[in-house]
């Protein structure tokens, strides 16, 4: 199994979720994160205090999928999240050794 971690722009969250579901992913977990990267933040100014905002709001999706389904899921995210503009985000793939569904105790791919 693979853990697919995708960091995308917040307003793309719904599109990406739909794309993943369409690609057969049945569960995922989302966190609100702040991202630092090539996309430079806006300058925020509060009264006199001006500073470069290094971190931009992003959302991180984490979905564990079957090995077989990983490539398709990555594709789905890529297609749904791309705007072609800097800051579109990243997808990382990690190996997962085991998965458990708490409710039933099922493990492995059956747990996804």
């Amino acid at each position, binding site marked *: 199994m693979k853990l697919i971690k995708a960091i995308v*722009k917040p307003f793309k969250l*719904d599109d990406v979720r739909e794309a993943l579901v369409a690609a057969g992913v049945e569960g995922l977990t989302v966190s609100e994160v702040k991202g630092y990267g090539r996309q430079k933040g*806006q*300058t*925020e*100014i*509060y009264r006199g205090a001006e500073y470069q905002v290094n971190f931009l709001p992003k959302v991180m999706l984490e979905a564990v999928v079957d090995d077989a389904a990983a490539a398709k899921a990555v594709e789905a995210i890529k297609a749904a999240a791309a705007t072609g503009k800097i800051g579109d985000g990243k997808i990382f793939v990690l190996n997962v050794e085991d998965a458990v569904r708490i409710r039933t105790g099922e493990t492995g791919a059956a747990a996804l």
Partner: protein
Amino acid sequence: MLLSTLLVLLMILPGLALFYGGLVRQKNMLSMLMQVSTVTVIGMMAWLLWGYSLAFTDGGGLDTFVGGFGRLFFKDVTTSSNVATFSTGVVIPELAFAAFQMTFAAITAALVLGGVAERMKFGAVVVFALLWPLLSYYPMAHMVWWWPGPDAIAAAPTDPIKSGLIWGFGALDFAGGTVVHINAGIAALVGALILGARKGYRTEPMPPHSLTLTFVGAGLLWVGWFGFNAGSNLEANSYAALAMMNTFIATAAAGFSWTVTEWVTRKKASMLGMASGLVAGLVAITPAAGFAGPVGSLFLGLIVSPICVIFCSTIKNALKYDDSLDAFGIHGVGGIVGALATGLLVNPAWGGAGVVDYTTCAADGDISTCDTATYVMSTQVLAQFKAVLVACVWSAVASAIVFFIIKYTLGLRASADAEEEGLDIVEHGERAYHS
């Protein structure tokens, strides 16, 4: 009067700003607060410079529709000038009257923003704050509220009585149902239509970012609204107490009936429904506050919310316009319901205050000494209907002109990117919350 003025300020900042601000998404929070504030401060300055004059002076040849230039820059508005109330010989300082009316002008324009929230460009809002009152608010206020006062009439009893158009219909509007709510509600609808819907409208969720703030706003609106309704009596007497009681009862009833409507149709009563109902009740009772009896107000409150619910959900969804924060659905619709109902609830047989025979008081213009006229339901409802119609048409046309002017010059909408990233960071360079 001074207190009432304060209360109306409380309604705008922070009241209305929070009510609206809580309903937008977090990324547009500051833009909402900023737009409300900007419209308010510009409205206040413009009132001093030209607004007061255009609303509350004799407009000469155009007097039926709009005032004149006699009080530009508050010329001759001093600590020794006074304006008439409804009783002969009773006056209030003109500065107090002008301040009270200034807050009305400010809040009306701010209300419109609810229809165009989350997508209108800040620059466009600035221009709107200048233009819209010129074409819509000042004329409407003049049409509904302008008359020279009982003392002036008493001084020249044989002259024909001057007044704005809608005042002349004999339509009843205690505290601005037409001028404020119908006017703002229609403008919001027109604005929403001309701007078009927000990106993602009806496809992505756009939940309110803080219903707590919306609730606080609704509570402050209620508290402040007494400035509207009791202050509109101009004199403090037992009619002010009646206006207050009605403002309590109709509001409570409307809050209740909105939640009951939800409970019946969706099995759940929501806090937002309660808050929306409270505001709908406040809107509906505005024209009727000094005319209806408490039991009449109870009925008005119970009736207005279900009607607003229909507009805010069924009709809006069917017609697919994006009245983002339901400025039309609550202020426009609630204002129309209230204005029409005023014609019924004033019925003395139903506990209302009855109408006044203006012919018997024309000699001195003092309303408090006029005879009570025979209330004829059809006459009164017709007068109300005419007032509503004129207000709707005027507001729609004036607002359309204003929005189209902006659209074809400066542009109305923020860029697609700004809409996605949020207006706060793109237009104002700030974010509402940090940790």
